């Protein structure tokens, strides 16, 4: 047991007892039980004693990402405005939080504040299990509810853990949305203008294919392909379609105009060579690298790539919203949650409040993120300005339509398989629609809707 890198309290508790332990077996047993007790006590201590002196904070954003930069500054400001309080920050792995959140939050090891994934299967589930603190009162009092309505969707969960309505369980600091990134040098070389309608977009892609260039870099093995499919469905959709599909407020007809158009157009784009046949096996990472290598003129993906392209792409590039759409895949980003077992909740509320302050929000914006409460006038970085201006266009029409894999557990894999069939041509659009309709409707039945 001495091999176990004894914690300080263990060393204190045991050193005296070990000496006496030589005198007899009973003393040895007593010492052993003390050791166990000390280990146990240590587990309790490290969770923070609720003395208002430490804020145990976990998040899983890289230190150089927009969020990492903004939150590091927020920690500094928090410590400045709370003298005597120490922020105990630990950078966590996404996988660890994904696997463990329920177990950690149900124990004494829970942090005071934590970044967590938004959505029914994550934050919704934990709120339903009673592991998160209701933030409704704080949100109203401190003005966190000033963020846009579609951003609030992922903050509020009802008694069943379904997002959209109910109590506040999380606060997003940033947002994300899907757009088209384009290589300006390739556009100039092939004499292509930035398209503003879907027809122009298809004409532009035609120009590239005629010149022997595949226009879209697509990662068919992961999320990117399904987001293109969803963009196409949204081009024919209204807000009520999104409410039905994502929030179960009505019936979704997978053979209706939206999805029929999406699947047939997607298959058409493959047939015309806009999407390469081999992209069914491409991962998102390789899709992005192929774009930074200048092999493809365009990639349709989310704002999470922005910072990466700013630092990695060695050519002139820009972005535009998916032409013709008013609805775009996107949502509030990951949220701050305060676990039910948090020891210093009021400090956690103060910290969230600091991250929502204009300085931190603007810093997030200037570092390549999409802030939720920034003042666009103070965004000085030219590249960031383009990103945030486009986001303002999306939110001004309440145009965030979330992601296609959200409505049902395990739906991500269903959509990956479906789009792979479309890319490989192994199933007709009609058959693919049947394939993706079934798990969706099964989930509705299990929810009793």
């Amino acid at each position, binding site marked *: 047991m001495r091999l176990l890198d004894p914690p300080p309290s263990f060393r204190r508790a045991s050193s005296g007892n070990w000496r006496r332990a030589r005198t007899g077996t009973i003393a040895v047993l007593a010492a052993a039980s003390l050791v166990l007790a000390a280990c146990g006590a240590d*587990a309790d201590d490290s969770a923070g004693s609720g003395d208002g002196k430490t804020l145990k904070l976990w998040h899983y954003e890289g230190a150089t990402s927009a969020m990492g930069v903004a939150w590091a500054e927020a920690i500094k400001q928090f410590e400045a405005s709370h003298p005597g309080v120490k922020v105990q920050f630990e950078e966590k792995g996404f996988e660890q939080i994904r696997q463990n959140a329920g177990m950690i939050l149900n124990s004494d090891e829970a942090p005071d504040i934590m970044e967590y994934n938004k959505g029914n299967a994550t934050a919704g589930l934990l709120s339903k299990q009673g592991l998160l603190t209701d933030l409704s009162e704080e949100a109203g009092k401190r003005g966190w509810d000033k963020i846009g309505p579609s951003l609030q969707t992922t903050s509020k969960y009802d008694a069943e853990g379904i997002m959209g309505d109910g109590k506040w369980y999380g606060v997003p600091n940033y947002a994300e949305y899907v757009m088209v990134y384009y290589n300006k040098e390739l556009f100039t070389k092939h004499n292509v203008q930035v398209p503003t309608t879907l027809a122009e977009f298809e004409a532009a892609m035609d120009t590239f294919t005629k010149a022997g260039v595949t226009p879209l870099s697509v990662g068919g093995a992961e999320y990117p392909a399904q987001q293109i499919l969803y963009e196409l469905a949204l081009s024919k959709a209204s807000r009520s379609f999104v409410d039905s599909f994502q929030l179960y407020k009505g019936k979704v007809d997978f053979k209706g105009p939206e999805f029929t158009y999406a699947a047939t157009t997607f298959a058409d784009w493959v047939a015309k060579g806009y999407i390469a046949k081999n992209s069914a096996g491409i991962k*998102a990472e390789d899709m992005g690298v192929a774009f930074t290598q200048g092999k493809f003129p365009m990639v349709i993906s989310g704002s999470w790539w922005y910072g990466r392209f700013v*630092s990695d792409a060695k050519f002139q590039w820009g972005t535009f919203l998916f032409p013709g759409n008013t609805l775009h895949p996107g949502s509030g980003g990951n949220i701050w949650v305060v676990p039910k077992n948090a020891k210093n909740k009021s400090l956690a509320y103060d910290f969230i409040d600091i991250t929502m302050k204009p300085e931190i929000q603007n810093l997030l914006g200037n570092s390549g993120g999409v802030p939720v409460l920034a003042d666009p006038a103070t965004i000085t970085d030219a590249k960031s300005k383009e990103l945030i201006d486009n986001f303002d266009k999306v939110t001004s029409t309440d145009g965030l339509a979330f992601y296609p894999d959200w409505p049902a557990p395990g739906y991500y894999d269903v959509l990956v398989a479906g789009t792979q069939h479309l890319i490989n041509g192994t199933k007709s659009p009609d058959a693919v629609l049947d394939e993706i309709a079934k798990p969706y409707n099964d989930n509705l039945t299990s929810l009793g809707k």
Partner: protein
Amino acid sequence: MNRALRPAVLATLTVLVLLVLSPFALVAVNAVKSPDEYATDGPLSLPNGLYLKGLADFWIRVDFGEKLFNSFVIAFSVAVLAVVVSVLNAYALGIGRVRGRSAFLVFFLLANLLPQEALVYPLYYLSKEVGLYNTQLAVVVIFTAIQSAFGTYLLSSVFATFPREMLEAAAIDGAGKVRTLWRVVVPISWPSLSVLFTFFFIWTWNEFFLPLIFLISNDKQTVPVALGVLQGDRMMDATTTSASALLGILPAILFFLIFQRTLSRGVMSGAIK
């Protein structure tokens, strides 16, 4: 061997070795590449120069020295304890021939076949109950049990073929059960035990899932768990990930080189003497 066949076999083996080594080469190449180079030339290009900042950054970011120490402490404790437990169990089952020993062996085999995912919740509640959640002791106890289940199964069959004459000779010389174990059985089966020790050490070192669940605080985590910190929700940093992978496999390669003579002696050695 047939002279004509020789070049063909050699060529096939060379290709196989290259295939096995290619992932390591890819990791090594990308670990010393700068992010800029990766973005412009892709993962398959050779680096222009040696870029060690990724390795250094990762080491500092996760405090890798601390993780190495944690992993070493856990793997070493488990290896020692599991071998001791395995020997004691196998002595009773293989040599002592206690009643119902095949039932015991089937039980240990089943314990081995259980996926760790099935054990997670019971172990989580138990460890929380006794105050061992988020302690390295919990991981040591759990892996001692898991590894010694395999060790018991294996050593029991080794001990079952232990020469009876040897045991009878020891008994005639007046050795009791305990003395026979430590003075006769353990020295003779030492090669098997050291192989088991090596296996337990490497297996425990490479464990990811249970340490991920039980070691919550960063300062208690092991090397494989620390590597997981780099995998984001949607983003990965390929060069730093390669750097971390390189740092992660180096110790395993090192152990293999140190222990390879023990390993090549084979698990079953010492069974027949």
